[in-house]
Each structure stands twice: as C-alpha cells, then as structure tokens.
C-alpha cells in the first residue's frame, strides 16, 4: 500500500486530535533546536519539522518504555494508547533485548509491559546515516526487518507501507478509513530496494575501517593491559550506558513515608564506582578499566548468553555521547585483534594461549 506523505501526516494529526483508534498521543522524531544533526522523540504538534526518514534519534526508544525514574510501587493504573512513528531498525532490535530482559518467566516489569502492549510502532527506513551508525557491523540493516507494526519506506512524495503484525493490520485499516491509499507497482518495489541498497553501501563504506572478526566470546580473554590502555580517557561518567538502547540496569529506592511502601526505580550505570557496591563498601570492579571492560563484556558476551542476542545494535549513540572521545567501534576492533593472552576470570590461573 502507498500513502501520500501529506495524507499520512494529516492522519497522524487526526489520531492525536480526535483520538482516532483510541490513540492519545503520537510520538515522532523532530530536529533539535541546538543542532541540525540531532533528532529527538517528541509529541506531535502543529509545527511540521518532523524527520521520519533520517537516522536514529539521540534518545533511544527505550526511554519511551522504561523511564529514567519511575514509581513502581504502588503500581499506577494508567490508560493510554500511543503511536510511535519513525522508529529505526536498530531501536527495534534493542526492544527485542529489553523484551527478553523485562518480560520473562521469572519476572514481568509491569510498567514496561503496559507500554509495550499499548504502544503501536511505525518504523521507517533510514535514508541517511550518522557518522557513528554502524549497525552493519552487527548484522543490522538500515531498515527494520521485524519488530514493527507498520513500516514506512520513502518514495518521492509517498510512503510504501509494510505490515508487520496484527496490530499493524488494525492500524492500516484505520489509515484506509481516513485517507486515500493506493496499490503498489513493481516499479515502486524496485525503487525501494535500490534506496535500501544505496544506504547499505554508505554504511559499508563508512565502517570499512572498523571491520572485525565476530568472535565476541574472545573478549573475555583479552589481555588486561589492552583494556587499561583503551580506557585511559574514560572518566566514568556513565553517559554511554544511559544513552544505550539496550542498557536497563536499575536501582530500587525506598521512599516510604506513610504506612504504604513506596518503591522508586531509576537507571543505574555499571560505569559508576558505586554500582554493585555491597554493604561494607566492597565493589566487584573498583578500577575504571574493570568497569569499562564490563560494558563490552556485558554487550557481547553476558547478554548473548542471557538472551541469545547481542547487547549492541550498532546505533553509535555511545560514540556521540562520550566526553572521553572513546570510539566504541575502534575499541571492539582492537580488542578482537590477535594475539591474545588467556586469563582465567577468577584470576586463579594464567596461561598463554595458542593463537586461535
């Protein structure tokens, strides 16, 4: 199905204004006031400088499902259906990680679960890339392959719509009810394919210098000296984890003042010294390079064994945000370079390894 861009926006405005389909808010990327290169998720309003076809926003989509600080006890009962438009492939892959972490047999986070159920997601192909984008190094594509309800691919003055779920079918019906959609021609499909190829080619070029082996499990055995070297300019601010779409570490604070217990959940960061500090002051990773290393191992090793998914989508946000100018891609590449020394994690035995 194809819809004219103008018509699509008028549909979005009606969704929000008239509560079409029960949607109370429409959220989409908008250009930052401070920089032309930065996009942020915001609620639809009258001004029209929205960008569905550029690269990912600065704020990861996680922030719309898992807030930096929220009261988790007593549970708030809210009723609200939302539509997020312009989500990117990388962020949808991040949601896959969060889904496994926050909705599983051992535990369901009620708030995250609520927003997942009550949010409809329309993704859109990336027509441009940011210098830090590197999803291609992680088997990602500059367009979403799954995880969306509807997907938009830009062609001149229209969008080509792909349905990705039953929620998406429902949404498409709603669109058809209110604006004109037309049939696709083989020509359209070809032009979309060509567009996608073009962007993929750009990504490949941009990241050629960072290509690496994919034996991420080997990160564990990297010589500690290399981590010390790589982390030299890290100041431990925690920016990289706060901006990462797959990080979800949290702390739970008690803010009970009356008889009823109140618990507040906030983001935490493994880059901070106080993270995982136990009573008495011991912490598993007192040194900065240990915390620095932990982030890489968490992304490529621990999360992989926990969820069978990599914890990095290649969105590049941590690169843009780092005040220490740490180039994440370069660090990963460097660490995976040979030769390596095998270090047992418990620190009990250290032996030279054969060069794999």
């Amino acid at each position, binding site marked *: 199905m194809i819809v004219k861009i103008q018509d699509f926006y008028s549909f979005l405005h009606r969704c929000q204004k008239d509560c079409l389909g029960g949607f109370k808010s429409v959220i989409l990327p908008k250009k930052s006031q401070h920089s032309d290169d930065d996009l942020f998720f915001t609620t639809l309003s009258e001004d029209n400088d929205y960008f569905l076809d550029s690269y990912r926003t600065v704020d990861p989509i996680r922030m719309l499902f898992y807030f930096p600080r929220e009261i*988790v*006890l*007593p*549970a708030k009962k809210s009723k609200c259906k939302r539509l997020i438009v312009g989500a990117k492939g990388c962020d949808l892959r991040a949601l896959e990680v969060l889904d496994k*972490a*926050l909705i*599983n047999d*051992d*535990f*369901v*986070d*009620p708030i995250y679960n609520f927003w997942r159920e009550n949010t409809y997601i329309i993704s859109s192909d990336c027509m441009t890339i940011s210098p830090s984008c590197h999803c291609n190094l992680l088997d990602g594509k500059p367009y979403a392959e799954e995880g969306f309800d509807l997907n938009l691919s830009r062609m001149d003055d229209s969008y080509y719509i792909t349905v990705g779920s039953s929620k998406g079918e429902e949404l498409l019906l709603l669109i058809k009810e209110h604006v004109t959609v037309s049939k696709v021609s083989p020509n359209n499909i070809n032009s979309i394919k060509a567009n996608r190829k073009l962007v993929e080619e750009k990504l490949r070029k941009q990241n050629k210098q960072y290509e690496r082996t994919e034996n991420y499990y080997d990160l*564990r055995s990297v010589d500690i000296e290399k981590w010390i070297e790589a982390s030299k300019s890290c100041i431990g601010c925690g920016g990289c984890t706060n901006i990462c779409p797959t990080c*979800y*570490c*949290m*702390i*739970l*604070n*008690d*803010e*009970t*003042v009356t*008889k009823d*217990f109140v*618990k507040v*959940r906030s983001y*935490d960061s*493994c880059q901070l010294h106080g*993270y*995982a*500090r*136990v*009573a*008495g*002051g*011991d*912490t*598993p*990773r007192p040194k900065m390079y240990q915390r620095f290393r*932990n982030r890489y*191992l*968490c992304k490529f*090793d*621990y999360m992989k*064994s*926990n969820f069978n998914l990599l914890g990095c989508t290649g969105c590049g946000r941590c690169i843009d945000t780092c005040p220490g100018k740490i180039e994440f891609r370069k660090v990963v590449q460097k660490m995976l370079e040979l030769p390596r020394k095998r270090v*047992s*994690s*418990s*620190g*009990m035995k250290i032996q030279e390894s054969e060069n794999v």
Partner: protein
Amino acid sequence: MYNANPYDVIPAVIYEIIEESPTIRTLRLRPESPISFKTGQFVELTIPNIGEGPFTPSSSHYITEEMDITIMKTGFVTEYVHKARVGDTVGLRGPYGKGYPIEEWKDKNILIMGGGVGMAPTRSLFLTLLHDIDDYNSITFLAGARAPKEVIYKQHIDEWRKHDKVNFLRAVDKIPEGERWSEEVCLITKLLEKIDIDPKDNPVIVCGPPVMMKFGTLDLLEYGYADKDIYLSMEKKMYCGFGQCRHCVMGKYYACKDGPVFTYDMIKNEENIWE
C-alpha cells in the same frame, strides 16, 4: 508467582531482637502473611524510607509464620537495622533464588562452613537438615569468627551438639585481652585438619566473607572435594531479586535468580566471582 506487582512488599513486625554480638543482631519477624521459602533462598528486607537489602533467613524453612534474619552492621541500610526496635514494621519481598538442593543430599555426610555473619544462611540450612536428621548420615559444622565476642548463636550451641549425628567445631582467629575462649584458635579453614570426612560425593557448603570463600575453596579442593560438590553462597549486590537490575551478574549467571548458591563447578570460569 509474580501475578501482581513484583515489587510488592509484605509488612512484617519485629517481635524480638537478639543481640548476637556487638555488630550482629537477629531480627525475629512476623510477616502479615506467611512466607514460604526454601533454605538458601533470600529475601529483600526494607527499612521504610531508608532502603532495602538482600538477606538470607537464618531460620528453618519449615517455619513460615515467623522468620529470623541475622544482620551485621556494615553499611547504610544495616545501620538502620541496628536502630530498629521491637514493634517496628519492616518490609519483606521474596523469596528469591534457588536455595540449597538438600533433596540431593540424602544419606550424605554433609560439611558446612560458616564464617562470621556467613553463619546466618548456614544456620537456616542446619536447622532445616536437623528437622529431618534421619535422612542424612552426618552433619559437620565448622564455625569461625574473628574473636570470641563475635561468635554468634552462642545460646543454641549446647542444644545443637546434643545430636549424635552432629559434629560442631568452632574457632576464633584470635583471643583479644579480656576475652575468654575454650575452643579452637585458628582460621576456620584450619578446622579442616581436625575432621575426617570422605570428600568423595559428599557436599560441602561454604558461606562467609569473600576471602574465606576463596581460600576455603582452595583448601577444600586440596582436601579432595570435587568442584561439583562445593556449594558457595555468593554475596553480591542483589537489588531486585529477579534478574532485572543486573548488579549481581557474574558472567552468564545472575547471583539472584541462578543462585545465590552455586557449585564451584558452575562458576569457576565466570567473571567477578571472588570480588
């Protein structure tokens, strides 16, 4: 299990406080509704408006209407635990984790090592085993403390020693001036020289400060215990209890939901185990 809100808290009233040592006390709690747990599992204890922390009950899992928790004053939350008074209400969440696989220990010679406040979870295990003592061949308990006045559960020791199948050895690291002690004076790991257990296919359970866990494990390996028979209670920052917060991650494991008890075999190649 988590049908409602996983963060929900059950209020519990402190009905008695036992001062075990200058820095360790046992809170005896009566929760608003019974809490069933398996020995070795832990709960999150909330001090209202202060915070919460993970603690393993020190009472038998056959008792669900009441719960004992033994706590050492070491940090922010525990300082308030030590200010709490009889009649105060605290909060409990849980239980979390897997607990000790006691059903696998039928007819075995069980060795337990508890150092300092690490005696608390092992007391729960010990009391639970005592309840079904006929099922086991023997229980040897090695208890260690830094000094005589830091030895906890003194009031129970005579009664525990009455059982034929129980061998209970205690040691202190040193005897400061003015304190008295008539039992062993050595590191807890040295007590291994005073016992005679066939390490083959018998379980040993270790709980104590990280140094004791690390060197205790090395000594046990030397004694002849197999990696798979050494059970370690890992002390990690377990904020949530159900694998959300990630603070207790050790490589691919979460201390909270995969532990807090692990065999050495499971974790020996993981990250951050002794720290």
